[in-house]
């Protein structure tokens, strides 16, 4: 039997002006407008936010968890990619 379930939406909330939207969870909703409505009720009840983004979960392209090793491990020993690796002249060291 076909399961008639509402699609899943990932919800991002911006807590204050100037900050970025942060993922806070997901809701089920029949369409985009209702996703914003329910996100408002589920995630901003305690003054958590001033802006909401809703993204259909199926529209998010995610990296493969099984590829974690080849994607992320090689960065481990590249300490020269961190700005702290470089010795700055005393005059600009506290920039």
């Amino acid at each position, binding site marked *: 039997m076909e399961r008639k379930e*509402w699609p899943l939406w990932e919800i991002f909330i911006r807590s204050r002006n100037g900050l970025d939207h942060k993922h806070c969870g997901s*809701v*089920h*909703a*029949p*369409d985009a*407008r*209702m996703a914003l*409505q*329910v996100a*408002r*009720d*589920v995630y901003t*009840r305690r003054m958590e936010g001033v802006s909401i983004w809703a993204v259909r979960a199926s529209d998010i392209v995610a990296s493969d968890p099984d590829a974690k090793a080849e994607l992320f491990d090689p960065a481990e020993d590249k300490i020269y990619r961190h700005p702290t690796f470089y010795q700055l002249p005393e005059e600009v060291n506290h920039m």
Partner: protein
Amino acid sequence: MVATMTQQTTATPEHIEYVLRLADNALILGQRLSEWCGHAPVIEEDLALANISLDLVGQARLLLTHAGNLEGKGRDEDQMAFLRVERDYRNVTMMEVPNEDFGRTTLRNFFSSAFQVLLWEKLVKSSDSELAAIAAKSLKEARYHLNHSSEWVIRLGDGTEVSHAKTQAALDYLWPYTAELFAANPTDEAIAASGVGPAWSSLEAAWEGVVLPVLGEATLVVPARTPFKSYGKFGRHSEHMGHLLATMQYMQRTYPGAQW
């Protein structure tokens, strides 16, 4: 308590009556909506209905406190909410009829919030400054309730065969009760003349202007007006009111003066 007892009041009986109608509409609808807590079709809507319920109970608290002060007999919000008898409640009958299903609940929220938005918009300019302050707070809440319920009415009416049938049945059931909102009466006339607020009858055209397009988009058929009249705002309630009050008043009547 002493402060309340000695407070001078110049409120007319019509003024108190008018505030009580606002208060009891919010209180009784809030009570009805609270019945959905833990029973809504999905968790997201469970939270939404509980939020709306609590918004309304919050409005009722402010309004009942204000009515108690206007009355000047030292009754606080709890006494007003829980210790009056059925005939003293001034909500329109529509607020007390059972939820029945999600369709009727949603449609009633839609009718009620469309009315409240129009009413609060006027009451922001009330000559009663306390009432004007309550209106300013409540208007934002009512606008959200209207937004939420109208989105749902459209999706339920213009949804599946089952959701359409249930919402149409809800419309056929509720429509006659909406007439009470706009029935002319001496209290409203006195209030309109005093500058406290509008006669509710003056809001009918604007209300239909909000409600009818949404019902049309929802592909619902609006029934013709009938001679049916309800009289909740005069204290003559339906058979459902006693049961609602029994549940709502139980705690305060069993443990008088209980606080939490």
